[in-house]
């Protein structure tokens, strides 16, 4: 699979992506979300309940004025608003890196 290395290189946290970013969720990594006010297992379950599941297509649509926070993300057919702090736990690969 020649794509794998390219995929790993192109992986970033949704919390650090720019507006207009399109890609796919490759992993949920709770160790990357700091100071969210929720235990990791709870944060993971909430993200899953809002449809952030590995394999789902995402697009970063909008961001707020101050510090680019919060962000509005299209996940499959739904649009979800969340803060970049929590979005750090969502690992994504840009569409150009996808097979």
């Amino acid at each position, binding site marked *: 699979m020649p794509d794998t290395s390219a995929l790993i290189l192109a992986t970033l946290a949704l919390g650090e992506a720019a507006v207009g970013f399109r890609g796919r969720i490759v992993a949920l990594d709770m160790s990357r979300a700091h*100071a*969210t*006010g*929720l235990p990791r*297992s709870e*944060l*993971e*379950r*909430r*993200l*899953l*309940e*809002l*449809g952030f*599941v*590995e*394999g*789902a297509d995402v697009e970063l*649509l*909008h*961001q*707020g*004025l*101050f*510090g680019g*926070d*919060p962000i*509005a993300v299209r996940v*499959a*057919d*739904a*649009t*979800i*608003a*969340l*803060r970049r*702090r*929590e979005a750090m736990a969502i690992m994504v690969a840009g569409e150009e890196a996808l097979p």
Partner: protein
Amino acid sequence: MNAGLELAPVVALVGNPNCGKTALFNALTGSRQKVANYPGVTVEKKTGRLTTPAGRALTVVDLPGTYSLRARSPDEEITRDVVLGKAESEQAPDLVVCVGDASNLRLALRLVLELKHVGRPVMLVLNMMDIARRRGIEIDMAKLGGELGVPVVSSVAVRRGGTDQLLGEIDRALAGLPKTAPADWRPPGAGELRGAQREADRILRSALRGTGRPDSGTNRADAILLHPVAGLVILLAILFVMFQAVFAWARPLMDAISEGFTWLGAMVGEAAFLPELLRSFLKDGVIAGVGSVIVFLPQIVILFFFILVLEDLGYMARAAFLMDKIMGGAGLHGRAFIPLLSSFACAIPGIMATRVIDDRRDRLTTILVAPLMTCSARIPVYTLIISAFIPDRELWGYVGLQGLVMFGLYATGIVGALAVSFVAKRLFWRTNAGEPFMLEMPGYKIPQLRSLALGVWARALAFLKRAGTTILSMMILIWVLASFPGAPEGATEPAITYSLAAMIGHAIEPITAPLGFNWQINVALIPGMAAREVAVGALGTIYAIDGGDGAAAKIGQVLAGQWTLATALALLAWYVFAPQCASTLAVIRRETGGWKWMWTTFGYMLALAYVAALATFQIARALGAG
């Protein structure tokens, strides 16, 4: 709840937020619905009745929207407990109807899979089928039902006859229904949720015919409405119009109501066949009390109309998105913005509007600080004191000093509210990071007039019923304090100076003396509890000033001769913070479902008011204004 309602089968509506569940509930039950509170909590309980085509009488319960039975808020706990049949006051549902937005089914399908585990009969309704079709989304309902293992029907809640298929299926389901005992349910872990969402995605792919187009209208609107700068400007413009409407449009109606009650009071006051005491009780206690409640009704109706329009439109989630960072700095949730803004008109509709905040802690913090926003009832008091004590001159050539003081009082209230919420977040909740801000932004939809009318009607009725009883009893208490004992024979002073209120005024003089308050001010503050502006009239009564035209100006002249500047400034500082409104306290008790938060609000506001007035008086006197 009457006996007939208890016996009817119960159908519970469950679904994600914004799936059109309430529109469906309104279509099913129409005006035969009622809004109440679940015992002990602030969650709205909506039940209604309907008769199916087969003649079966049903009770329909509209449960709070949720993504999962794993409850995270008091609202979602209600949904979980009712579905599981664990809510003590509620009859367990015979049928769980899961409502899904046909154009956004992914999360709804996962919820259906979770609901199936509960062991009650489940049915899926694909709502807003018309919108989905317009976007080219075709769903193979038989395939979807087969894969999910539950009946699937479609509905268009907003169209006449749009629920016929659903009602037929409910009839079929209830006809052959064995009373099932729910299985042991436990909250799913991350692995189960992940597996269920993947399964839901697979089922959705297999049942979708036609991929559909994106909601281009919503995308175009969001490009402007969620723009970092333009979005904020538009939000402020919307809020300005709303504020203006609550403030200005309500004015004529409020004046009319107020005049109506004054006229009624005067009529009763002149009814010579009634004993003097009864006349006073009816006029000053009951009629003035009821009037002081009903006068808020126009503001509440207008405010809730705007809130429901914005909510149904799908804009509320956007407003929260735009304001989240700004409000977050003070430890408030993005959704607290509109309730706090409404509180500038009156804290009562503002506190009622906190229902848009899902998280209980965020909602309580907002309720706690809402009364610090300068409401319209403070304006008569501020105007009186400012015009009597603050010289009418210009600063730096163009800024009026009186206006500047007024602005300072508003600003002090806002800064106070932000500071209190900042402290409350840490004191009561002991968390630095609050609940994460995560919410779905629904596609924009045109609000339905019928739905709006039902929503406003239900809230107006709830306000009159709930607040009316509590507020009225407080008004009567205040009347008793200000009226007993009556003036002795041959009394020369106004009657109120012989009352319990005056005794209290004298008794607390040692406490209020460091604030520069004399006993007359103390006495005025007691009827001022009924409504802040009443203190103006009370001061007039105590200083024996005749009413009529220009009474306020006369009071101002007298006060300017009687009080020092330090006392006047201290009274202003007191009025910024003091819990001088029985109606607000009563509404806090109602909305938080207990006395605890009412007394917390009363206590902290009283403490702040005392400290602020004390500091103001002492500093002003030290600077030579005493």
